């Protein structure tokens, strides 16, 4: 389980995250929802120790973040994090070289599924294909948790569909996923848990299925309730 407890984060004098607490379990898709600038990416960066925090605690299966965390949690940022001059095969070789948990079989399967050519240079890929390579580099790691930052931002509808298909496939099954988005429509039907963020706080966290069954409300209904108050 990923536990974020009373997370506080400032940029200079500006407090971005005041008191953020939530958990993300294995086998569930947890979605961090909020408008741009609310601190969703900062939370993911903080989980991966890519930005310092001013308070609170982050635990992955009860342990603080260390180098071992990176064999347990994969982060897929909103932009690809490989050198532009690399070919797809170089990026794959790089990952296989450094990560014990790299699963080449899964990488090959995804290359096939997305129709990507390993000889292509990352710099020459379309936005959609870059997003797919980015996804591949994260999902081909045999990790328990995956963090995804705005995986649908700025890509075409067909790429979106292909990426959405990944969420319902065995590539995600049994893993814990934390995903951020400000466009919930694309993935509303996929998520298990929603965490609504505003003013640096968690305004509401709920189980999507439970809310649907008990109150007959969708995620968008709950968002209206929180954001249009």
């Amino acid at each position, binding site marked *: 389980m990923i536990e974020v407890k009373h997370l506080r984060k400032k940029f200079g004098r500006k407090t971005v995250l005041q008191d953020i607490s939530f958990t993300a379990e294995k086998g569930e898709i947890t979605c961090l929802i909020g408008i741009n600038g609310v601190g969703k990416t900062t939370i993911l960066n903080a989980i991966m120790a*890519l930005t310092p925090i001013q308070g609170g605690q982050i635990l992955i299966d009860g342990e603080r973040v260390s180098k071992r965390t990176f064999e347990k949690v994969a982060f897929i940022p909103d932009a690809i994090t490989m050198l532009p001059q690399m070919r797809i095969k170089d990026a794959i070789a790089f990952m296989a070289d450094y990560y014990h948990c790299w699963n080449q079989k899964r990488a090959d399967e995804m290359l096939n599924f997305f129709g990507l050519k390993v000889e292509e240079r990352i710099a020459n890929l379309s936005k959609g294909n870059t997003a797919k390579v980015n996804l591949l580099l994260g999902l081909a790691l045999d990790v328990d948790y995956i963090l995804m930052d705005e995986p649908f931002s700025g890509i075409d509808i067909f790429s979106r569909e292909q990426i959405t298909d990944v969420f319902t496939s065995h590539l995600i099954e049994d893993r814990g996923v934390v995903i951020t988005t400000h466009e919930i429509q694309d993935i509303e039907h996929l998520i298990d848990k929603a965490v609504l963020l505003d003013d640096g706080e968690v305004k509401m966290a709920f189980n999507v299925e439970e809310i649907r069954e008990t109150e007959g409300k969708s995620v968008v209904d709950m968002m209206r309730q929180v954001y249009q108050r």
Partner: protein
Amino acid sequence: MKSYLKLVNFEINRFLKLYVALAAFTVIVQTAVVIIHARSYLATAKDAVTKDMIPRETFLSDYGPMSIVRAMDGWFQLPIAICIAVLLIYCFMIWYRDWFGKNTFIYRLLMLPTNRIHIYLAKATAIFFMVLGLVSLELLLLPAESKLVELMVPIDYREDYSLNGIMEAFGDLNILFPKTITEFLIHYGIGLMMVFILFTSILIERCYRLKGILYGGIYFAFALVIFLLPNIVLIFAHTNYLYPVEMFFVELLLGILVTAMSIGLSHYLLNKKIRV
């Protein structure tokens, strides 16, 4: 350890194209300068001896003999100066390109399942190897260029130098070519320490951004003052309290201290303060 070595290899490969270009530039320019000098000398000698009927001995006493040292003018040293400048700039680029490149590769580096200090050590090692590589190239090139002079100029008109003699002719750049193991350890040890101090200052800037420029500058100055403390005391006290050998050991100790401080601080920054 394995990850560290892989990272060193990766960092060297990233710079390889420019590095090979630098090496090729050095070889081409220096060889060309030697050839131009030798030909011009031969032409002058030919004119003097055959046209003006000046005796060879008189010509040699007026003009001096041709040698590799004669060819080592500003143009000859230019590639070395360019290599030094490029490597100095690369000390900054090796970090900043990971933040400011088209794709922010620093995310990937910081998320590798290895101690983050390996990234820092690998970058420093890569710079160190690149310096050693270029110096080694020059050490191979000098005897080859000397041989070239031997092939072009008849023995009566030239003076041959040993490698040590050639290196002496470099003047201030002589520091690049230590003659003893102790000199090598001092010159390159100080060089490596300076790289560590600079890398730590860069990391301070990357962690604290605008304020970090100031903090990084202060750290750089602070580390230098610690290292140079015995010399600073010497300047102000006007008396040398230490024998040269004692001075050497104090400097050695301070050098180790400053290097350890830089690595320790960078370890802390990379784990607790770094921002992508």
